[in-house]
């Protein structure tokens, strides 16, 4: 090592990007933060709020791993800027189980049916399915209907058949079947 490398570098703590203040509700809690205007909502949720259950698989809006609920609808947080979520009501996977850790019917069904392997796609899958379950829409629980319902989410591990089973089982457990 040369001599100058022993000197402590002066490292800035944040970027010089322009910032804006956002206020939003996340899993029922109101938060106000200053964010860089180009920060993706996915990065804000993961690194700003440290809710790392939301994953990113492509960051170009195709895989669905980053799916969260924005104002009750499933949305891709990698295609949304954090500043666009100002005033929004966001739900992430961290809100899915009960406070005491008891798994929701949907989560239980995924475990029961072996609907996950690596678990990377799973939070996005679950938030997408949750949005459909909660929307009050009539669910088509045929194989085709369920495959259509999850057709915005890629999974590279399971081959989907067990996720299809899990959705049907969850609907049963939640009294929707």
């Amino acid at each position, binding site marked *: *090592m040369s001599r100058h*490398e022993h000197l*402590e*570098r002066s*490292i*800035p*703590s*944040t*970027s*010089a*990007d322009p910032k804006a203040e956002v206020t939003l509700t996340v899993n029922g809690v109101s938060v106000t933060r200053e964010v860089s205007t180009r*920060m993706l909502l996915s*990065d804000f949720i*993961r690194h700003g709020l*440290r*809710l*790392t*259950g939301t*994953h990113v*698989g*492509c*960051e*170009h809006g*195709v*895989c669905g*791993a980053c799916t969260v609920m924005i104002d009750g609808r499933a949305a891709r947080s990698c295609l949304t800027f954090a500043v666009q979520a100002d005033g929004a009501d966001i739900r*992430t*996977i961290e809100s*899915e*189980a009960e406070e005491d*850790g008891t*798994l929701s019917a949907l*989560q239980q069904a*995924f*475990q*029961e049916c*072996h609907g*996950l*392997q*690596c*678990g*990377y*796609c799973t939070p996005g899958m679950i938030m997408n399915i949750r949005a459909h379950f909660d929307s009050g829409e009539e669910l088509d629980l045929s*194989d085709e209907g*369920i*495959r*259509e319902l999850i*057709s*915005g*989410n*890629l*999974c*590279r*591990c*399971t*081959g*989907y*058949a*067990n*996720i299809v089973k899990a959705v049907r089982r969850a609907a049963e457990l939640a009294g929707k079947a």
Partner: protein
Amino acid sequence: MSTRKFGAPIKRNIDPKLLTGNGAFTDDINLPGVLHAAFVRSPFARARINGIDTSLAEQADGVVAVYTCDNIGHLDIELPLLIPHPSMTAARTQRPLARGDVYYVGQTVAMVVAVDRYVAEDAANLVDVDYHPLDVELDLEKAIEDGTPLVHPTHPNNIAADFTQVCGNPEAAFAEAEHVTRIRVQVDRSTAAAMECRTVAARYDSVRGELTVWDGTQAPLGVRGGLASIFGLDEDKVRVIAPDVGGGFGQKVMFPYPDELLVPHAAIQLGRPVKYIEDRRENFIGSNQERTQIHEIELFAKKNGEVIALRDSFLHDTGAFIPYGIAVAQVASTSIAGPYQIPNIHVRFRAVYTPTVPVTPYRGCGRPQACFAIERAMDQLAEELGIDRFEIRRRNLIRDEQFPYTREGLLFADGLRVKLDSGQYTKALEMAREAIGWDNFAASQEAARKEGKAIGLGLAYYVEGTGLGPYEGGHIKIHPITGKVYVNTGLTSQGQGHDTVFAQIVSDQLGVAVEDVIVVEGDTGTFEWGVATFASRAAVVSGNAIHKTAIKVREQTIKAAANMLEADPADIELEDGHAVVAGTDRKVSLAAIATATNPLRYAFNSAAQAATQFAPASRHDGPPLIDGQHPGLEATDYFSPECATWAYGVHAAIVEIDRDTCDVEVKKYICIHDCGNMINPVIVDGQVMGGFAQGIGGALYERIEYDTEGNPTNANFVDFLIPYATEVPAIEISHLETPSPLNPLGVKGVGEAGCIAVGATLASGIEDALRPFGGKKFHQTPITPSMIFGAISNG
């Protein structure tokens, strides 16, 4: 006795954590003060670098450091050739950051470290590299011609390796053939595309001189070895942790990728944690891929369909570098005769450098290509000889009484000879025939054709060499306070459910609940002997090591319990976390036994009181621990297989082609599968179904595209088509369980099973469906709608 856990569909221990978003993938780990790395990558497939100007990037707000080959010191080397083999001369591997030349679009040229990823990526765009582009040839068959532009001037005709293996006496057999079938088949390049891209984060503790690296790898021990040797650090000062990893499928077994060295280097230099989270485009252009092979295969047969010899010569695209040696091509060449007796084999391959992303294993690793070649050739032979496709296979299958069946002269990827160890190949074929409804198919096909519908039946047989050595280990300890059982092994999981299947094995020996077996893997700080997760080997090699270890701990536990309960060891049973004297209610908990076998000075709880030096049960006539005795209940053991164990199976499908849209609809898909004894059938089915979906991708959709100048043209999830739920048909799986004689549990690997035969099966079915509508052959995958359109419209 508690019921046996081996073979039961136990729920996975890891699921609640993953389902609630509490997994800890690399990018989820909070490292205060972390800096972010981004790479400058070559935009040319082949070019000379005249100069690199980093000054603008260095001045950018928030940039901390910019690295090129000129300021990375001891890292400016050619990376190791991981698996040497005599068939390669002067094998080429890449440098962490390019020096002088670049060899593929995506190769790393410089690394920027900045306060966040946004700034780092912006600054990477400010690095000015002056390239002088060179000519390239992307076509694999042209690449070996004289006068073609070379990827490496050191390698004439772009040949990286040229290797021939021979079994039996093929020359003599060729002369005896009554019929010869020849076909050329091609499988195109795909990629693992795990949902989590590759990741690496590093922190250096300058007080302790310790480097900790979190790496989404399949080979933490290998990465540690690589880091220790390249950085000149003692192994004990390097800890590599593979945390939760979002799928691997082979791409993550390769190491070191440039970032795996450069990120730790920056962390050491800058005194701050640094991380690099690959994005999807980088995964397509910077992380290794696999598949392209072109086979010219010939079957030498008797008129009755018996194949007496096989000759195959294939080109294997190894990309710009060959860091993993010839592993993929070697697996393909040794799997080429499939499940058939074929006693005489001549197989040659040439591995060819192309100016593209390097090639190392992706789930299947040469097996899908070999299966595609032999199975398409079998169909062709059947057609030429006028023999039913099931029947011609039946006549050639290795018969039950012929096992173990050795292919003398062929060495598998473990350097050991190919020995197909056990199976019921004929039965599996019969089951497939029945399940797909072969006997009635001709009539329904005929009827459908009358209505103008194109319906076909396809089938393919596959074998899968699994469970390679050299070895894995297991360490088991019963915790004296909780009575929970801690298990360590050296490899690591990317979703396969090791924590549960290993727990089932231990649970059976120790009589504890599966949830009370805590499996910790993928951390070189907890267990440091082992190899890695690849080639469907975890259940076989680690599984058996853990099984052997559990037997040792069981013996220790029973002996100690017999002593405590003053009973005959033969009467002790282990159940529900206790040792019980059979037929009585006298019992003691595993926690108490673990405590009692550890002579104590301090009584920290009631069980500990009984183990202290003044307790009535203590020895007073010598040292509390007898010479050679180990305190507590703990053991370590290893398993090293004699050679690979071969799983196998048959796929069959009924497909319908829409002649207007050229869409392929899979109406029925069945799979007969045998991976020996199944530890957890639900997890086995999960592996098969996941592999199947990747097989569907390879058969119909996925192809890495390059233009003629070597630019990738579909390096994103919009254009590279990974199947969604709407593209993966239902699959009906049936199992046979023929135990492997090569390991105590009788298990075989399952990781790659699902993907191997899908391309061959669908090609067989599509060809059958379109026979009256043009009669084209389908000898290439993926089979795209435009290929089908071409076949129909030229017909």
